[in-house]
């Protein structure tokens, strides 16, 4: 057994987290900053943070992830990291010539109390930031929130630094996609294009973390939202923020800074959430939904109705990030499945209420936990108490899945052992179809594996 010390007896814990269902803020800030064109993320802390975050993102995407570090040593930790950051800014513009350096802090620089606004102003005053170039920052202490908070903070920084209140008013709609995959961002852009809606989407990691092989390494890949696009988003007629945990802060910032009216939606994962997204977008933009999208939706419904027998009543344990979980649970509920254990390490106000809201009267027995000690160890203990038919979560779930012999679907961050998430979306109707296919395959492969020979089905 891989997790041989996990038992079904749950002892109250107040201080120890075991097998976390979250990680720390800076990696989310790094991911968000990669969604800005010609931007080099910069980690203001000791080297390990940057190294670990680059490694985690690289393993998840199988793509180069470029980022720099302030390389704190003991001296910087005692005297503050100003000298390190000033030196870093100069070195980065000399060697790597980005349009933007997006600095995020770490628990180290936050504990010291480095004032990033002041340091950046000093860099500008000393001429270390070339004309037309930018240094921006987000405060991302690792001892608050989670990786999702870090994403949210950097996404908000894009607004506060760049969105221009004076930008020309346009019909454009700004989409703040939240922490989703490059494939999802590509799908959102594609849906908007099919609807005929002009959008700005940021952060946008498509064509950055799914870059093609061309025989040349583009240090700054083609993708990413440009500073100009974000500036212009200040003149958008409306904005949609997807997922409160990752996008509410940037949506509100855009509204208060530029007066862009914002609508907050759950992530468009699954049928109903996608319905709400498409409906909101068409209403805001005043466009008609093309038949191709309505057909796509119809095909999804068709498969659900055709294959319902394999889904109905199946008990699911699921862990991951709050915005993802709310929409996934809503979708599972629509399929008449039973999401019984739902865990996120990210401290999330109203998490249980949001989950209960999408479940309605269904699955009253569901156990829901967010924040400290809401970890995979606890989730595993619940599974040991009463088993599930399916586990959904990031790669670390495979240790539970193997020990308990449960079908397992990878979703979330990080996925270290499979490819696909960067290329095939989980948002939109196409994404829901992909999720559905994965769920069905998981159950049907299991049935094929376990069926006695006389009950081995040709047609399913």
């Amino acid at each position, binding site marked *: 057994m891989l997790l041989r010390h996990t038992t079904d007896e749950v002892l109250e814990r107040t201080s120890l987290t075991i097998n976390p269902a979250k990680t720390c803020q800076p990696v989310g800030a790094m991911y968000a900053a990669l969604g800005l064109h010609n931007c080099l993320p910069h980690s203001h802390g000791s080297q390990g943070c940057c190294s670990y975050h680059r490694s985690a993102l690289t393993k998840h995407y199988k793509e180069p992830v*470029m980022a720099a570090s302030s390389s704190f040593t003991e001296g910087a930790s005692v005297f503050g990291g100003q000298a390190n950051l000033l030196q870093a800014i100069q070195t980065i513009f000399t060697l790597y010539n980005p349009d933007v350096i997006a600095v995020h802090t770490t628990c180290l620089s936050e504990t010291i109390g480095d004032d990033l606004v002041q340091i950046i102003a000093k860099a500008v005053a000393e001429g270390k930031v070339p004309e037309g170039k930018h240094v921006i920052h987000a405060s991302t202490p690792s001892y608050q929130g989670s990786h999702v908070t870090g994403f949210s903070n950097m996404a908000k920084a894009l607004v506060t630094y760049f969105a221009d209140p004076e930008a020309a008013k346009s019909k454009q709609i700004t989409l703040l996609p939240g922490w989703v995959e490059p494939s999802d961002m590509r799908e959102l852009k594609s849906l908007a294009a099919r609807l005929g809606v002009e959008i700005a989407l940021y952060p946008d990691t498509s064509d950055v973390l799914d870059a093609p092989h061309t025989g040349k390494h583009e240090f700054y890949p083609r993708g990413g939202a440009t500073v100009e696009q974000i500036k212009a988003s200040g003149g958008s007629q409306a904005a949609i923020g997807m997922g409160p945990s990752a996008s509410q802060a940037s949506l509100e910032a855009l509204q208060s800074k530029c007066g862009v009216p914002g609508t907050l939606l759950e992530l468009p994962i699954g049928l109903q959430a996608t319905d709400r997204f498409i409906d909101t977008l068409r209403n805001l933009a005043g466009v008609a939904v093309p038949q191709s999208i309505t057909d796509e939706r119809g095909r999804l419904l068709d498969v659900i109705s055709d294959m319902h027998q394999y889904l109905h009543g199946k008990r699911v344990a699921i862990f991951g990030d709050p915005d993802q979980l709310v929409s996934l649970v809503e979708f599972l509920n629509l399929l008449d499945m039973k999401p019984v254990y739902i865990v996120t390490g990210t401290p999330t106000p109203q998490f249980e209420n949001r989950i209960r809201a999408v479940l309605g009267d269904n699955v009253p027995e569901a156990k829901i936990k967010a924040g400290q000690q809401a970890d995979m160890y606890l989730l595993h203990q619940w599974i040991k108490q009463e088993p599930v038919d399916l586990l959904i979560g990031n790669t670390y779930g495979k240790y539970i899945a193997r020990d308990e012999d449960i079908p397992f679907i990878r979703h979330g961050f990080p996925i270290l052992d499979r490819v696909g998430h960067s290329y095939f979306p989980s948002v939109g109707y196409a994404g829901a179809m992909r999720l559905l296919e994965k769920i069905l395959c998981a159950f049907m492969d299991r049935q094929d594996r376990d069926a006695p020979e006389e009950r081995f089905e040709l047609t399913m």
Partner: protein
Amino acid sequence: MSVDPRVLKEEILQIYPKKLRQKRSESIVINEHREDGSVPEIKANVRSNPGIITQRGCTYAGCKGVVIGPSRDILSLVHGPIGCSFYAWLTRRNQTRPESLEAQNFINYCLSTDMQEENIVFGGEKKLKEAVREAFHLFHPKAIAIFSTCPVGLIGDDVHAVAREMKAELGINIFGFSCEGYRGVSQSAGHHIANNGLFKHIIGNDETEHTERFKINLLGEYNIGGDGFVLEDILNRCGIKQISTFSGNSTYATMANSHTADLNLVMCHRSINYVAEMMEKRFGIPWMKVNFIGATATAKSLRRIGEYFEDDGLKARIEEVIAEEMAKVEVVQALVKSRCQGKTAMLFVGGSRAHHYQQLFTEIGMKTVVAGYEFGHRDDYEGRKVLPGLKVDADSKNIEEIDVVPDPERFRPRRTPEQIARLEAMTEMEFRDYVGMMPEMDSDAMVIDDISHYETERILEAYRPDIFCAGIKEKFGVQKMGIPCKQLHSYDYGGPYAGFAGAINFFNDIDRLVNMKIWRYATPPWQPPTEQPEQVAAD
């Protein structure tokens, strides 16, 4: 057209501001073998320039991730915000094989105090103590190791005091590591801190005597991809008893008992030489640098063990194992060599691997044109003979140097000075020595310490090597250029690469990588072929 490394070096340095140019010029060295046997001096184990994009990680990574983490029944508890423990969770492929289904194995668990803002403001000791208690009640470990992360040192939490208090309260061995990420210039500081902890808190705790005659410890072998399993098998077949490995596939008990061995074999010099030194001083166990990467290197290392124990039976068994294994290696080696002969490699990894793996490339006719360490010191490059002249700078000074004296009861020199002298008179039987990377590289090879991304791109453009070896952060950028990249931390989730069986795996993997078809399809038929950048002209 061949590359003139001196011209290339100057071109690389041009872009740097003056101070940085001076610093990097001392860390980029063109190798030469001087008449007095020395090699050029290289600046190593110094701070990375902020913003330069280094490969390096932090002190915590070296301590928890590299040295202590691989041991399966020491319960590792990370005191800090969640990230540090999360990123070191199963990410280094240290395989471990518990003795039984019931035996303790914590390697798949990730424990953290998940410090929150109030712990930073009001201190985290109370939460740490409670977390230790909770961990004790849930896992019943023999030992708990507490690792400090960056903010812990700043806010003044005393993990050592907490460890002592909890040790008294719970009655098991509990010890702390002040391995905050900022303590040193790289992972290397963490290795040293971990070594000190092993020595102070574990080694020598168990006096069980083993009756076998040829007892060794294998130091600096972390069982990445099962390397340690291959070596265990070889040593077993030779009749050599492995008391403990530091720290792949190890347990608390084997390490506690390791001072009963009669010889320490050091694989990864950088990460573990401190333990070897300290064990010799306290217990009288000599140490030898060995290399089990590469078939001929493995054979040589085994023969040196035979010479040390001066036993004809042992030597005969070693020769049998070598003969049997080499026969298998040579078949694959000849085949792969026919396809790889003359190709070039670059290696930028670790504090030993960039040296060790050159041997494997040599065995299939490939030449290493540029190499360097991520966190090596001068002795790893130039050999331990430079140690007496090494200046201890401010960044190294804050790492404890333990003053070790012979143990009053347990110091037992395994060999007399005369025996050592007699052995050292033979070829390649040096003790407490490591010759270093540069003496074993060609003259005119480039050696670059702590290479940056910028420098990596420049040497790749200039040399267009057939393979580049580094880590996950470098891999995909290099491969986007159409140059295969072999990860030598994780082995690209393959391996093992140690010993004879490992050499066969490595040869096959390199053959596959340098000859795979897909590199030739980057340009679609409707586009003109891309031109390869020209190499830097030689004078």
